[in-house]
Structures are given as structure tokens and as C-alpha cells.
């Protein structure tokens, strides 16, 4: 059964996102929320790192946190899905465990 990994710190400030991606298994999901959403913006330096995980992992970003930071859904790199709070809950339910990368 897969794991939902959550990341809530900006990859520009902390290594949480990179550590998370170093420990994902095939079929896992990664959700970026709070300050981590800045890592999902098109043209950012972490998109390549995220892309490398795309075949094995599903990537998500939390919409309300994007909106709060003025990042539009159209600014998100392709391959990353925007979810709302209900979608966050659905992901938590669909996975066997949640691993938070603080």
C-alpha cells in the first residue's frame, strides 16, 4: 500500500522536498502545501527534480496555498495536479500512511 508524503517548507529554504523525493517508493503520492507550493512554479529550479520522480510518483499541490501566494494554476509546472482541502483528505484516505517532511 502506498504512502502520502507531505512537504510544507519551501525547497528554496529547506531540504525537505529533496529528502522526501529521496525516500519515495513507486506508486506513492507527494503533496506540496504551505510554503512548499513555491517549488511547483513553472521555471523554478526544483521542477527538474520533481520531473525525475514523475514516472513513479503522483505530484500534487494545494490550491488555497497557491492562491494565497499569488501563484495561478496556469503557473504550475505540467505534471503537478492542483487539489483543494477535500482533495488533501481524499489523498490521506487513499494511502496507507502519511509521512510528513517538515
Amino acid at each position, binding site marked *: 500500500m*502506498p504512502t502520502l508524503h507531505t512537504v510544507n517548507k519551501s525547497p528554496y529554504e529547506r531540504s525537505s522536498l529533496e529528502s522526501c523525493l529521496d525516500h519515495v517508493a513507486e506508486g506513492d503520492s507527494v503533496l506540496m502545501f504551505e510554503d512548499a507550493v513555491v517549488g511547483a512554479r513553472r521555471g523554478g529550479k526544483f521542477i527538474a527534480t520533481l520531473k525525475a520522480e514523475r514516472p513513479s510518483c503522483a505530484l500534487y499541490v494545494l490550491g488555497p496555498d497557491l492562491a494565497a501566494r499569488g501563484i495561478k494554476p496556469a503557473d504550475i509546472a505540467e505534471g503537478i495536479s492542483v487539489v483543494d482541502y477535500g482533495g488533501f483528505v481524499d489523498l490521506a484516505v487513499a494511502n496507507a500512511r502519511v509521512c510528513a517532511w517538515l
Partner: protein
Amino acid sequence: MSEQANRKKFLYVNRRAPYGTIYALESLEVVLIGAAFEQDVSLAFIDDGVYQLVAGQDTAGVGMKNFSKTYRALGDYEVRKLYVERESLAERGLTVEDLMPITYEDEDDDYAEKPSIHLTDRSEMARLIAEQDVILSF
């Protein structure tokens, strides 16, 4: 339900150095609580978390409680699986020789002293995460 059925696999993920924040100390407190409920407890030390186990911590100069000795007592609480990520040590210029010796007495083997620290590759760490019931991150 039997006690066995109530026993879950708990993994405590430690990714921060001690003393700069309260995370490491809080993690230890929660680990001891989990152990009191007879759960199957494992600890992972990843990234700066490996510094929690470094030998020779001396907090006299910073005026904080040195809680590093508590890790050596974990064996008495049946917390005997401390997984330290090999790559995290190497990236920081550390080796397993820099860590405190942490052991437990195996009551099933004439109380032989056995190491609690398991040096773990990153890929093995990912597998460890994938086999847990509950993950608590600090």
C-alpha cells in the same frame, strides 16, 4: 482484540540536529510514551537528525540540558531499532564511529549486549517507511 492485534509499527523520523530547536527532545519524549504502550517502535535518523546520536555532546556552554544520554537508555524501554541513514552521515563528513555506542540487552540470548544502531542505505530507508502503520515526523 489481543494485545498483538493492537500492536502497530511506529516509525519516528528525526531530521533535525539537537538543541537548535525543540524537535529532537520532543521526539524522544513521544518515543518513550509510545514505548509505554508496547508498540513496535523504530527510529529513523535522516539528514541533520544523525547529529542527535553523535558522541561527546557537551551542552554546558549553551546552558541547555544534555539529553543525549537518554538515547542510550532506550534499550531498557524496548526501543531497540535505531536506523541511521548512511548517506546522511557521509554528506556531513560523519561515520558510524562518530556516534554514541547504543546497545540493548537481549533477554532471549542470555542478556547479550547487542547494537541498537543499524546503518541503513537510503533505499532501505524508503522501504522501512513503506512498511509502517504510523509515521511521526520531527
